[in-house]
Each structure stands twice: as C-alpha cells, then as structure tokens.
C-alpha cells in the first residue's frame, strides 16, 4: 500500500475541506506535518485509521466526537453536517479511493446526533475510469487484504506509546499479527479444503468398496472424528486460557493499585519473574539433556563392542594378518615385471610366480588394515568422549535439581505472600486474592487438559494413519476401488506435504525475522541486549550472562527502540520474502508508516539513529511532529528525504492566546494564531519547499 493523498471534511478540528498530497518517491518518501500540541496531529493520524479501519489510537480524546464543532454550530437544526475522510492509495499498480463518511445532526435542544459511518471504495478499473466496488465485495475486506486490520497499529501509530507493542501483555497479539502478515492463510485454507475433499473421496469409496474396505473406512472415520472433536476442544481451551490470562493481568493490576499491599506486590512480582526464569532454565537444561542423549547417548554402550572389536584385531595380529606388511600394488608390479626383488624370473605357471601370486591375497589385507586402524582411532576417540558425555549429563542433572530446589523455595515464598493476602484484614484484598487463586486454578486445569488432549490427538492420528496404510494394502482387485484409494492417498499426501511447508516457513521466517530485529536493534541501541523471538513469535529482550539468556527489565526508551526495530524488521522481511515468492497471500511488499509524535522518550543519539533508519525501512513515512520533537538531529537526518511538508495552523478563540510560528525555507508559517471568530479550528498550509 502506497498512500497518495488524504482529504478531510469537518473531521475533528479541521473545519471545511482540506487535502494533503503525500510524498511517495523512493528518494523523497517523507511527508512532515508540523503542529503544536492540540492542533490536530493525533486527529490526522486517526483520520487514516478511522477511514481505513474505523479504529482510533489510545491518544485520541473523546473519539465519539468526530464532527467539527464549528460546522455543527453553524448548521441548521436537523440538517445533516457532512464529515468524511478520504484516503487515496495505490496497491499493486491499481489506484484506490476509500471514503468513510458519517453525518451529524444538531438537535433543537443543542445536542448532537451522529449517524453510523459508511464506507465507500472506488478504484481505477481496467478502462482507466474510477469505478465503485461491486456490491458483492465489501470495501473492508479489500482493505484488510492489502493491509490487515489486525496489523494497522504497526503502521499507524503514536510514537510516544510505541513501546506498548512489545509489552508483555501484548505478546500474543504481536505473535498473531506476525503470523498473519506472513500469509499463512492460503496454506491453512488449502489444508482444510483438501481434508474435506479427501473425506468426500472416502465416502465415495465406501459406496463402491468391499466389506473390508468399508470396515476400515468406518474405523478410520471414527478415529478422525474423535481427533476433530478434541481439536475443537483445544481451540476452546486456547480461548479460555487467553481469557483467563487477561483476567489474571487485570486482577494483578488491581492488586498493584491497592497501595497497602504494595510492598508485598513488589515481592510477588519479583518472585513470579524469578519463577518464570527458573522454569525457563529448567526447560533449557532438559532440552540440552535430550539433545545430548539423542546425539551421543549411544557411546555409553560402546565399551562392550569396542572390547570385541579389539580382541578381533588382536587375533588377526596374532595370526600375522595384521599389520599387512606388503602392499598389493608392490606385488602386482613384481608380477608385471616378471622378476622378483631377489632376481628370480617370474614366468607364468612357474612355482616362483605362483608363490608370489599368493602374496596378492594377503597383501589385499592392507585395505582391511587401514580401515581397521581408522575404526580403531574412531573407537578410541568415542570412548574418550564417554566421560565428557557423563559429565555433561551430570552437570545438566545437577542444574535441573538445583533449579528445582530454587523453584520450590520460590513457590513456597510465593505461597506465603499469597497466604498473607488471603488473610489480609482488608476484605477487598482478600477477595482479590481469592479471585486470583480461582483464575490460577483454572489456568492450571486448562493447561493440563490441553497437554493430555495433545497426546490423545497424536495417538488418534497415528492410528488413523495406520488404517490408511491398511486401506492402501487391501487386496481388492476392483479397478474403481483401487483408483479411489489412490486418490485418497494422493490427497492425504498433499495435505501432509502442505503441513510440512507450513512448519518450514514458520521456522525460516521466525529465525530470519529474529536476526533482522537483532541487527536493527543493534544498530540503534548501545546496550548489549539481544532481542529474542520465541517459537510462538513472542518478542523479548535478553542479556546473555554466561551461556544463559536472562530477561532484562528494559526502559521505556529501550522498548520503544525494540518496537521500532520490530516494525522495521517485519516490513523488511516481508518485502524480501515477497520478492523471493515465499509469501503466499496478498501481495504486501510496500508499507507506509504514519507516525505521530516520533521518538518521544528517546535520547539524542537514539533519536538520530531512529530518524535515519525509519525512512529507509518503511517505503513511505508520514511524520506528525511538534517543534520540540522536530529537533536538530531529527531534522538533519530527515531533511534530505522530505518530499512534502505541511503546517497545521491552529486558530484559537482565546483573546490572550500565545501566538506561535515556524520558519521553513525562509518563510514564516503560523502554528497558533488568533481565531477570526469564536471557534477554534485548524487549517492545513502546505510549505513551499526550496530544496528541490
């Protein structure tokens, strides 16, 4: 999506119609909009999100009041006041116009009634004319295909609150959004629809199959149904778990707010964080242990075989077969020359020749010899690793035991604190802890059920797979039946292979995305923290202590950088993957970033780095900035890439309003000025740029 223009009419502080053309060339891809606080920068950001997604950012005050007050005040009673935003954009070589409109009415009693908004979309058709979207298609669907609604907050955001993206409680949200952007939907749908088709084929086979086939199919279907029911239950559990986790966070937040327990709360937080870390460490150790056993576990069983092997060698040595002291080539050379080293002629058929020839067989052992000694060296080497192996196993076991001990202590301490809260003299605290206990119990129950179901599903699928094989091997000679079985088999294979592709993509995408985030984060931050993206696409910052990753409590600034690195990396990766043809889904290789109040809490160095990197990452950047945000280093870095520039002029009805202005390219533009009437409203002035 490349943004082309924004038009507004009576939207928030913007009275009447206004329009902005946005910079879109590759070299000059920044549009800067200067404005003082309260002049409508956030409203402009929200003009995009409202028009495209009917969404507002958290920073927008009273989002229900969309229509400009002056327009309403000037309107006749019960006559509609138009309020709309139109966003023009280009996607995949096609131009689109999206217009969201809502009407407001001033009632007799002075109240305002606002109707529900309507969305219209036009595009340039094949004939080059603007055409309305056919009624069979919803504009919302078209937009979300181009830039998914669930991802809009990563492209239209408030720079001062950007760190929220990476907050712990938003982890699952960011994970889901990332997966969506990677376009797993086509694969999911293909797998789902192929499964339905396979079932239809099985039904057809049941109609024509013999008794054995029918019985096998019936059994298979029963198992699959059972597995499906469990899968459905798993989805319910996931939803319920998400709900309980959110509830838990809310309850914990309330607990934190009760100042009386603040001391305990701090301890609780610390202990819970420690609990999480220790659990992670235990998991890590278990992983290392598993890996060691599966890769090198066999070497502990080697000594017996090695002893046998050595005794074999000794026998051969005793028989004089090893070491082989004569090489085959040497004997062959003598035979070819027909002369022994002692000078005896070796004529074919002579005793001497036969005798030398017999050496050929023995000399063949030289290959056996070198192979034997190679094996011996390897056996020795492996044997020497046995100690290392046991040492590693012992070390990890000890670490697990130690951590388990620590975990127990932490859990005891946690239980103590919770007990104190349970018996607090204050009823609200007791009640809160009771509810938290209930939530914890529910989470525990659900997690256990989920694990058990997972095992059951795997087992059912295994059994169904075996029945599928039996079907394939059934001895039916009937041609039609054979063909049907073959088709079912092909459908199943297609499903299995698509599932593998899905797994592969997940793996590759996650690794590459993590690398990209790490690289970008490293370019901006001077802290030695490393961003990590978990198997579930959850983002966190860690510090490497020894061989262990330790989660860090990053500052707001660090989290802002992490969030920006994440957004930049997603954009960059999706662009690369699209080029490589790896993204199966809508083409989404061009991304705009619309950013209000950039780099609020960052230091100068960070501001400079971010100002330099963001325009390079996003294909297009729209920045709304106050004068303090548009400080030296930001301006310096962005100036060469500015393509369009606007000033929001706020008209204040206050008689004592403090006027302000901004000077650009030698010209003064008012930021705040006295309103010519009793209304406050904002106008948009385009800056005449003189730098090309």
């Amino acid at each position, binding site marked *: 999506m490349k943004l082309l223009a924004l038009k507004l009419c009576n939207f928030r502080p913007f009275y009447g119609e206004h329009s902005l053309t946005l910079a879109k060339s590759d070299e000059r891809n920044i549009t800067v909009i200067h404005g003082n606080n309260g002049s409508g920068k956030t409203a402009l950001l929200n003009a995009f999100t409202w028009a495209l997604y009917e969404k507002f950012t958290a920073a927008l005050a009273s989002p229900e009041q969309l229509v400009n007050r002056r327009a309403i005040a000037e309107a006749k009673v019960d006559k509609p006041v138009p309020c709309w935003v139109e966003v023009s954009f280009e996607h995949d070589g096609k131009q689109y116009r999206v217009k969201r409109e809502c009407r407001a009415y001033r009632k007799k009693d002075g109240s305002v009634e606002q109707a529900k908004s309507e969305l219209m979309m036009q595009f340039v058709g094949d004939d080059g004319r603007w055409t309305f979207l056919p009624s069979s*298609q*919803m504009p919302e*669907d*078209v937009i979300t*295909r181009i830039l998914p609604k669930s991802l809009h907050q990563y492209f239209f955001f408030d720079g001062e609150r950007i760190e929220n993206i990476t907050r712990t409680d938003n982890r699952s949200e960011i994970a889901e959004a990332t997966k969506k952007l990677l376009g797993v*939907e*086509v*694969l999911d*749908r*293909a797998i789902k*629809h*192929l499964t*339905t*088709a396979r079932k*239809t*084929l099985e039904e057809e086979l049941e109609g024509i199959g013999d008794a054995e086939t029918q019985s096998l199919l019936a059994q298979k279907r029963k198992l699959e149904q059972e597995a499906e029911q469990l899968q459905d239950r798993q989805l319910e559990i996931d939803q319920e778990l998400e709900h309980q986790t959110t509830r838990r966070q809310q309850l914990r937040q309330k607990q934190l707010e009760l100042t009386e327990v603040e001391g305990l709360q701090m301890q609780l937080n610390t202990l819970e964080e420690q609990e999480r870390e220790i659990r992670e460490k235990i998991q890590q150790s278990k992983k290392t242990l598993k*890996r060691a056993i*599966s*890769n090198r576990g066999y070497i502990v069983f080697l000594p017996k075989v090695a002893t046998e092997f050595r005794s074999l060698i000794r026998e051969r040595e005793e028989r004089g077969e090893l070491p082989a002291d004569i090489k085959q080539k040497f004997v062959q050379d003598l035979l070819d020359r027909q002369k022994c080293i002692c000078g005896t002629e070796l004529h074919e058929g002579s005793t001497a020749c036969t005798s030398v020839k017999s050496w050929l067989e023995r000399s063949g052992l030289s290959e056996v010899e070198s192979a034997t000694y190679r094996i011996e060296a390897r056996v020795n080497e492996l044997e020497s690793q046995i100690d290392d192996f046991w040492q590693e196993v012992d070390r990890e076991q000890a670490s697990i035991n130690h951590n388990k001990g620590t975990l127990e202590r932490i859990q005891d301490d946690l239980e103590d604190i919770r007990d104190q809260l349970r018996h607090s003299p204050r009823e609200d605290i007791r009640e809160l802890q009771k509810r938290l206990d209930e939530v914890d119990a529910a989470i525990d129950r659900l997690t256990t059920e989920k694990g058990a179901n997972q095992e059951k599903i795997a087992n059912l699928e295994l059994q169904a797979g075996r029945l599928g094989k039996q079907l394939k091997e059934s001895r039916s000679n009937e041609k039609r039946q054979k*063909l049907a079985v*073959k*088709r079912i088999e*092909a*459908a199943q*294979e*297609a499903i299995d*292979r*698509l599932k*593998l*592709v899905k797994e*592969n*993509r997940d*793996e*590759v995408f996650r690794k*590459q995305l993590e690398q990209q985030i790490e690289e970008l984060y490293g370019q901006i931050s001077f802290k030695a923290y490393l961003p990590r993206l978990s198997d579930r696409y959850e983002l966190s910052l860690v510090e490497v202590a020894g061989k262990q990753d330790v989660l860090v409590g990053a500052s707001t600034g660090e989290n802002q950088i992490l969030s920006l690195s994440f957004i930049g990396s997603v954009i960059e990766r999706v662009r690369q993957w699209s080029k*490589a043809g*790896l993204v*199966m*889904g*809508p083409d989404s290789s061009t991304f705009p970033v619309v950013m209000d109040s950039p780099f609020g809490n960052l230091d100068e160095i960070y501001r400079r780095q971010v100002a330099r990197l963001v325009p390079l990452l996003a294909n297009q950047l729209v920045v709304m900035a106050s004068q303090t945000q548009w400080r030296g280093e930001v301006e310096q870095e962005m100036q060469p890439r500015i393509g369009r520039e606007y000033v929001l002029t706020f008209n204040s009805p206050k008689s004592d309003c403090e006027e302000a202005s901004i000077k650009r390219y030698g010209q003064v533009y008012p930021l705040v000025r006295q309103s010519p009437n009793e209304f406050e409203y904002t106008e948009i002035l385009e800056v005449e740029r003189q730098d090309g």
Partner: protein
Amino acid sequence: MAKKISSDAVHEPINSASPEVRQIIQRVLEIEKDRLDKNERSPINDEILKIIKEAIQ
C-alpha cells in the same frame, strides 16, 4: 535434532513430491490464492475434487 532450513528449502516438500501430488498441491494453492484475493467464500469442494481426480486417473 534442531532443524535448519534455508529459504530455498521451504518449499522442498512440494518440489520433492511425485508429479501428480505436486500438480494437486500447486493447483489447489492457485485457486486458494485467487479466492483469497477475490475474497470468495463459496464452497470449493467440487473444484478440489476435480483437481484430484484429474491428477490421479
């Protein structure tokens, strides 16, 4: 053992399939992508059945 996959290898399960299965996968993915772009939600079982039956004869 941890899997290490290069970008090129992502689609290996499709590329290594027999020609018939590969044909099924590619044609199904094509119509799914097409439908995704057009946002069609009508049933497509018949289309997929046709693809499978045409590939395996």
